């Protein structure tokens, strides 16, 4: 019996050793030591083909990007491939862990810190020829520890989207479009009827944060967490009061998945959404007429939030020079306008703004938001803090704004320091 188990152990031991050998054997090919660092500096160069990994919003985006990359490939003579990820963060993580990441990839600002922190990213922002053309707030959104990491590929801001039919039916005119919180609450009240809520939005900081911005608050300012400031408390208290009165509501509380759905179904007469809503309205609710206005001013003036992605570059990429060239190509004025036409995003560069505004006069309010928009803070762990904030906001109606914000403050302080 003892003999038997000793043999068993021996067998297991042998297996372990073989396994370890096999793994270290793999080290020759699959698990190379990471070579580059996140520091700006020399780019690698070779004639290797490059890969662009995208998380697409739909066929329109996939086709447009594929076409653009093919055109670049033709021009530069370097083979390039577009891969569509079904779960971008997961596929990126796998690529980095295996030491074989895509050369360029879509990257969200909240994921920037994690990848920059472990050295997976190449900071190439300062080497972009069109560096100064990007909106400063976007550059800031992709700056981590004073380094501009990657080129913003496009962006969106939030605006006030109004259901034209319900607006007219309530006897309101263009002059009534709210420009202050007081006007917003009064039109919301006018628009609220049986089965329709005046203003609906998703139950998350990504929408309610606009009120905090308008009140002069936010999450982080000059490297300090300011979540529990009086401005933020005022903003949440305002939202809470309106929700208690029944003139504002969460889209989820009226049974929709997001603000656009509740708006399209006519459950809410106004919503706070970004320019992606145009696509959803065309596809799912073609009969609903709507207008887009800038969000009303709060006590501290205008405020909105912006959302963006950049073209991240892998530190382990074998052909960073080509990747940089492709990033410049994709963020050129011409390409930005082409993308905008294909799938409705806003160009991240200022030189395309005039053309865009004249092409999309109805959506000008979204682009106007670029001047005063706040982005998501780029500290490691921000995503978790915001997820936690959102889970608190979901109970805002019965909650205590000060208490909710105090929790956010302590969570933020832990990552900002």
């Amino acid at each position, binding site marked *: 019996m003892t003999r038997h188990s000793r043999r068993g152990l021996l*067998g297991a031991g042998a*297996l*372990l050793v*073989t*396994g370890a050998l*096999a*793994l*270290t054997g793999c*080290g020759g090919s*699959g*698990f*190379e*030591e*990471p070579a580059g660092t996140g520091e700006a500096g020399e780019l690698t160069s070779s004639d290797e083909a490059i890969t662009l990994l995208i998380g697409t919003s739909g066929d329109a985006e996939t086709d447009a990007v594929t076409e653009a990359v093919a055109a670049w490939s033709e021009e530069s003579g370097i083979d390039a491939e577009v891969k569509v990820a079904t779960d971008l*963060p*997961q596929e990126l*993580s796998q690529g*980095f*862990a295996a*030491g074989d990441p895509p050369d360029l990839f879509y990257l969200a600002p909240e*994921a920037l810190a*994690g*990848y920059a*922190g*472990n*050295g*997976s990213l190449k900071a190439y922002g300062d080497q972009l020829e069109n560096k100064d053309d990007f909106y400063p707030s976007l550059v800031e959104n992709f700056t981590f520890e004073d380094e501009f990491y990657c080129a913003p590929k496009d962006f969106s801001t939030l605006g006030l989207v109004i259901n034209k039919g319900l607006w007219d039916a309530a006897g309101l005119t263009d002059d009534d479009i709210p420009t202050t919180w007081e006007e917003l609450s009064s039109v919301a009240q006018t628009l609220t009827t049986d089965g329709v809520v005046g203003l609906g939005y998703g*139950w998350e900081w990504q929408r309610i944060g606009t009120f905090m911005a308008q009140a002069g608050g936010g999450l982080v300012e000059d490297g300090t967490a300011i979540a529990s400031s009086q401005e933020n408390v005022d903003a949440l208290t305002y939202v809470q009061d309106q929700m208690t009165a029944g003139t504002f509501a*969460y889209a*989820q*509380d*009226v*049974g929709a998945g997001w603000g656009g759905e509740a708006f399209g179904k006519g459950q809410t007469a106004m919503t706070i959404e970004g320019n992606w809503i145009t696509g959803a309205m065309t596809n799912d609710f073609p009969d609903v007429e709507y207008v887009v206005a800038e969000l009303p001013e709060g006590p501290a003036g205008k405020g909105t939030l912006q959302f963006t992605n950049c073209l991240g570059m892998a530190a382990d990429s074998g052909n960073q020079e080509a990747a940089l060239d492709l990033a410049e190509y994709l963020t050129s004025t011409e390409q930005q306008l082409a993308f905008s036409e294909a799938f409705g995003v806003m160009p991240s560069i200022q030189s395309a703004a005039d053309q865009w505004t004249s092409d999309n006069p109805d959506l000008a309010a979204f682009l106007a938001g670029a001047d005063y928009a706040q982005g998501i803070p780029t500290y490691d*762990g921000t*995503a*978790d*803090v915001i*997820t*936690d904030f959102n*889970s*608190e906001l*979901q*109970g805002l109606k019965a909650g205590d704004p000060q208490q909710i914000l105090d929790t956010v403050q302590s*969570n933020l302080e*832990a990552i900002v320091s």
Partner: protein
Amino acid sequence: MTATATAPRRARNTRSGIRRGEALAGWVFTLPVILILGVFLLIPVLMALWVSVSDWTGRGSPLSANVGFVGLQNYAAVTTGDGLATRDFGTALRNNTWYVILVVPLQTALSLFLALLVNGAILRGRGIFRTAFYFPSVTASVAITVLFLFLFSTSGVVNEILGAIGITGPNWFADPRGLLHILFGAVGITDGPAVLAEGDFLGLSWWNWLAGPSVAMTVFIIMAIFTTSGTFMLLFLAALQNISPEVQEAAMVDGANAWERFWRVTLPQLKPALFTVLTLGLVGCWQVFDQIYTGTRGQPAKTTLTPAYLSYDASFLDQDWGQGAAIAFILFAIIVVLTIFQRWALRDRPVSARRARQYQLAPRPATASPATVAANQVPSPPGPAQTPAADRGDDKEAKP
């Protein structure tokens, strides 16, 4: 005894005769499985264990030279302090505990009930029912999750039906209120007593631990019971078919009614199957991931967050691979401990004094006929005085 023990050993040592090479052949035959299990199971588990005590950040190989050993730091990050990581882990643990407490007993009871139903010889169309009950188990859990998302949406079928009988259904997947908190609220208790609200465990106050599963989580609980009871029904059914009808008949002759036959005769014989079902149920429930990933991703208000999903979230989305692996191993420890506990709880026990007394012969009534006396004597397990011997006898009876 010694002579017989040494003789074969010497024979094995010299490795002569026709048995030579058998050991080698054995290894060769098992090698493919050992390799497959090793490469795809053992080594990944060991690597994950290493990651959980390292500062690997997700770039390059975790075995490379610049990954350092940090001891139990990752475990400490999710279990000590009052930071976000600890609170998230506490919340996930709370949610999953309620999930387990409700799903495991209910699915076991339901599957046993279904198995008894379709085992009955008198039921017509047994095959159809067996297939129907088993069907949810063979459907992909992602597909069922999507189906449930529709069924339990605000204006979904479930709420329509509830509406038809005059009940306003909740906004299922958007309702973070805990069931117990709702109950407490109904009797006017909205804040826990100070002693519950003050003290906390893993960053979560005791009052929040007592929230119960949220309305959203309840949907997943219903779904889990619905999808798994078919599989477990099959296990119980197999065990039921193994019980020989003679035992049932003997019990009938002894005058046991249907309930007694189930409780005293059938169920004890199902103990091995019961252990299997409970263990599989427990393991499956603690690992719930795909429903959460496809369905809610922890929303609303983190009440459907589970440790398995949190582990994924920490690793793939936050690049905290050490913490993610640490959560996975804490989960592993919880499952092992609970399984051992369950094994202990379901062990074969000597007949208790109370139970034994029931079998003892009553003082012979004057009017008793010899037949009733004989019937009374048939089930005569040993009395409490004989416990050591009784143990073994009882063991044999419990394991057919």
